[in-house]
């Protein structure tokens, strides 16, 4: 159950553009890591740990690993609109409790509840479907592009960080 593995290729296998027509390095230059100057040793391989454990938290979603509608970004903000009700699952009640009076991202809910992001996505999706929460910052459209692709937003971010 709950085999959520997305159908994504292994990015490591994607060949890098190295034909000189893109902004890659000089194609005649060294391959990455091929010629390290002294003092830049190449470390050992990454660690691999043991077998994966069974994920019990997905039992609270009835085994579903996807929200009913869209996939919620990690940074989507959840706004509470309704008080928790007895018929809500405990985890859903806790979500509603956390988002009362404040916006919290899917990632923050996941961290505070010690639940995987995937579980929070499903629960928040259900709560949104029933109108108990509103989700902000969902997938953008052509008429409303992602904030990070808007120069004026980036300018505000730049000024904001600079003033920190």
């Amino acid at each position, binding site marked *: 159950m709950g085999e959520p593995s997305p159908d994504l290729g292994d990015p490591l296998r994607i060949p890098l553009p190295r034909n000189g027509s893109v902004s890659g390095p000089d194609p005649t230059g060294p391959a990455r890591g091929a010629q390290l100057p002294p003092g830049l040793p190449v470390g050992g391989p990454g660690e691999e740990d043991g077998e994966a454990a069974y994920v019990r938290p997905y039992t609270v979603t009835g085994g579903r*690993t996807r929200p009913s509608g869209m996939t919620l970004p*990690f*940074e989507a903000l959840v706004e509470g609109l309704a008080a928790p009700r007895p018929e809500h699952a405990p985890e859903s009640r806790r979500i509603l409790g956390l988002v009362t009076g404040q916006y919290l991202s899917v990632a923050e809910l996941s961290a505070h509840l010690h639940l995987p992001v995937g579980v929070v996505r499903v629960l928040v999706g259900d709560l949104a479907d029933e109108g108990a929460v509103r989700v902000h910052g969902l997938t953008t459209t052509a008429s409303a592009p992602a904030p990070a692709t808007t120069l004026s937003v980036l300018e505000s*971010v730049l000024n904001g*960080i600079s003033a920190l």
Partner: protein
Amino acid sequence: MAYPHSDVAPALPRARRDAESAAPAVAPTVVKIVVAGGFAVGKTTFIGSISDIEPLSTEAAMTEHSVGVDDAGAAADAKTLTTVAMDFGRISLPGNLWLYLFGTPGQDRFLFMWDDLVRGAVGAVVLVDTDRLDQCFPAVDYFETRRIPFVLAVNCFDGVARHTLDDVREALAVSSDVPMLYTDARSRAATKQALVTLVQHAMERLSGEPGPGAPGSPPG
């Protein structure tokens, strides 16, 4: 987590959001920056040096690979948690803007999660540890291939730069238009500079200007 937060200067102003305070009437505009780099290169420290909130850790889910989800934060599981957890922080900026900093899960086998993480991001700061240079290869490859704006921030763990940026650039074989700078993940000022450099780079890319590599200078 591999890094205790005790090395984050306690004097940092931390604008804590009071749970009782009312949410602003208009939802904040959210932007995010991805912090990538090898295992234990200092991503969490980097995030913690500037985040308004103590860095949080979550399982970057969508995976059946899950260890210790019920006792996230247990010190005994530190290493396991680092490998499966995604650490992140948040900065409130004027104009009702929230900037999230997401650290990537450290190991190659979690690269598939990055697509989720990177979608809609301003870009990425790739932290480089020159003692373990190969650890950042997957991140560099990833962002380069997808043409996602990124900067290389060479982390000077003890405040000393052991290698010139040119040497590191050559060893990594990255193009000269990728900004490089020294950083110190513990330093708020240095982290700020890395983020500023990234946002400027992203703006240049967005405006179609050929971005000159921003010269870096040792922090502090």
